[in-house]
């Protein structure tokens, strides 16, 4: 935090030191320009003409949300029978930040070189990754950003990785078709991207893929990753995926996760085998 002190004050120890307030993490709330002020801004439309009554209605709605000192910045006529509002208000609700727990994708942040190196030294073969935008969704911007050579925000796509054999199937791939290709290509991981979310079609399609994978006995053989602007990790887990990536995800985030998950599963498998062999040898001794 910036301190509002100067050196002469410091020398005079008897005088109180003036500083800006630091955030109270036990009672966190929004910040405008004074710590703890709780300022938020919001914009919305009401399906009525602008009028003093419409103004009052907008303020009342905000008060109903628990806002205090509601300030109506503007009320505009957006069309016949529609008014648009920009409003400021202060939130009284506080949150204990120290008690917040979020389920996150557990994976290290690594560069492309680091990831390729791990694959080379610890896995010793290329990992096969298949990506698609499924169902009727034709918006490939997400899967393109992750897989295509070019990548996203200066982070190269999975096609560029020496340790990955990545294939982008593009738009409107049906779930069964995707699984067929995954089997044929012996995929280690499948990336599914969904952009359209009307009527929760993305969730339906995600769940459908998992159901089909289970039916075909493929579920545990694949690392299944969901992605899209409205996708979160907990949501992906709920749909039965192994991980979910949302807005701003870079290809290296996904690659790093795939490598970690692959090694984790392999080690677990090896342990199982090892303990199985041990049991066998114990049995044999008996």
């Amino acid at each position, binding site marked *: 935090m910036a301190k509002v002190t100067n050196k002469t004050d410091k020398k005079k120890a008897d005088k109180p030191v003036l500083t800006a307030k630091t955030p109270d993490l036990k009672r966190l709330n929004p910040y405008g320009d004074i710590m703890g002020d709780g300022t938020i801004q919001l914009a919305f439309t009401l399906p009525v003409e602008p009028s003093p009554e419409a103004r009052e209605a907008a303020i009342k709605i905000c008060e109903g949300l628990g806002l205090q000192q509601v300030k109506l910045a503007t009320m505009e006529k957006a069309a016949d029978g529609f008014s648009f509002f920009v409003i400021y208000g202060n939130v009284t609700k506080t949150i204990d930040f120290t008690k917040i727990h979020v389920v996150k994708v557990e994976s290290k942040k690594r560069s492309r070189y680091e990831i390729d190196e791990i694959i080379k030294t610890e896995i010793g073969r290329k990992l096969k990754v298949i990506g698609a935008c499924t169902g*009727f969704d034709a918006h490939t911007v997400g899967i393109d950003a992750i897989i295509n050579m070019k990548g996203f925000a200066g982070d190269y796509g999975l096609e560029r990785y020496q340790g990955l054999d990545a294939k982008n199937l593009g738009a409107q791939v049906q779930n069964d078709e995707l699984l067929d290709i995954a089997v044929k290509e012996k995929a280690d991981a499948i990336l599914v991207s969904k952009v359209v979310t009307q009527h929760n079609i993305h969730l339906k399609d995600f769940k459908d893929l998992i159901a089909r994978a289970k039916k075909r006995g493929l579920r545990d053989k694949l690392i299944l990753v969901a992605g899209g602007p409205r996708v979160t990790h907990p949501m992906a887990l709920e749909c039965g995926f192994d991980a979910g990536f949302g807005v701003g995800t870079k290809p290296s985030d996904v690659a790093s996760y795939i490598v970690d998950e692959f090694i984790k599963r392999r080690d677990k498998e090896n342990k199982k085998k090892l303990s199985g062999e041990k049991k066998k040898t114990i049995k044999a001794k008996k």
Partner: protein
Amino acid sequence: MAELHLDTTKILRCRDIAEKISKPIESLIETHTTVAIERATLRLLGVNGASVQNGQWFPDCNLIVDELAKTGRLGEGILPSFVAKMLETKMTAYELGQSIAKGKIQLLSPTKSGVNVSPVEIKRKASELCSNAKQNLIDAREKRDLLRKKVQDPFDPAGRNGPLLYVIVATGNIYDDVTQARAAAQAGADAIAVIRSTAQSLLDYIPHGATTEGFGGTYATQENFRIMREALDDESEKLGRYIRLTNYCSGLCMPEIAALGALERLDFLLNDAMYGILFRDINMQRTLIDQHFSRRIIALSKIVIHTGEDNYLTTADAIENGHQVLASQFINERFALNATMTQDLMGLGHAQEMSPEHTNVFLLEIARAQMTRQIFPKSPIKFMPPTRYKCGDIFYSHLMDAMFNFVGVLTGQTIQLLGMATEAMHTPLLQDRWMSIKNAKYIFNGAKDLGKDIEYKRGGMIDQWAAKVLDDTLAHLEMIAKKGLMRAIEERAFAEVSRTEQGGKGFKGVVKKTADYLNPFFEIL
């Protein structure tokens, strides 16, 4: 207008090569028909009914064409058998369509005796039906043009009136779309595009009736067209300003959408010779043959098409591949000319999609927008907003749209598809559209004549970039001409996408015309 110093001989050379590229495709177009062309033919004759099949409305024209296709006789066209049955039953095309769909009449059953269905009589009747159908299209066009004259019409293909404000509606429900469209028109929009449900381009039939559910958009149906046009007619009259309607003439039903769009007085249709191939994996031959017939209808109805080159740079690097856009525009222009369209009907599309963090990115944008304007001076250039680098920061996004609007007004673009601050989040809310219209009106008005009051420095950065893009375009077209269009597409000439001549959806619907193929529309449209 301030002009770049482009090498006009290179531009002429590009046009010559585009013509050369189109030649072999033209003979493919002439010798083939498709299920979609035959269905469009029936629709123009009035076969626009539907029947319930497995609990869903299914168009009569699909059932009829499928019945003929099953026998392997589609190469003769749908008209000989259909018109013979019309002569025999004395039914209208609509009535016969319904009767065949309901199974009351068999399309290919033997003709009753005592009825003259000689080939000469069939030919005469077919000509008469097609002439009447053509008159229907002309009547619809004239009705549309009458309203344009009655109220004020801000559209000038060459862009001299400043960019037209074009926005999208996409609620999935045609009635909610109407509410949003009316609000947009009242806020200042000049053109409304109803976005289609995301799956529709791959349906090999057009859904029927008014629809209230869609994904990422609303189904294009004849009834939805009519409902929206009626609302916009009303709004045009109220506002004293003509509001244009746009829909998608692409996908597997391209010729049929052209027919329905023409009948329902649409103003703009998104229609591209190659978009379906590249971005929807529709078969090359199917798309190239279909686009021709659809454009013949469009030419007669004087609908302005919008080409889809803006999409190229969402998949390919936007700074390095600007020439692909220009090369495709030359090819689209040539295919449209071949389908008897005039340049004032060719809304050639483009977008920038360059990284906003690239230094001097606006100089590159101005270069590309200005050269597009100059190279196609008579055409209504359509400028598409940034999408690729849009994110959830709606405030930054709004600023990107403002700069896009600035480039649009400076370079005299004809149709400006307004960007939405919430582009990366959801289909536009009423307030998103209102904000974006306010943004555009402010900038279009404030910088109205800037383009007339400046000059581009000869050999400056903008001039040089335009020259480089033109050089790259010429080289790209030469490469395509050498390989042939189809092989070039296979080898990723556009958008880093590869397609094959016999791959993709809808290839089964392409048939070679037989010697006795009958379809008078090919002569009279």
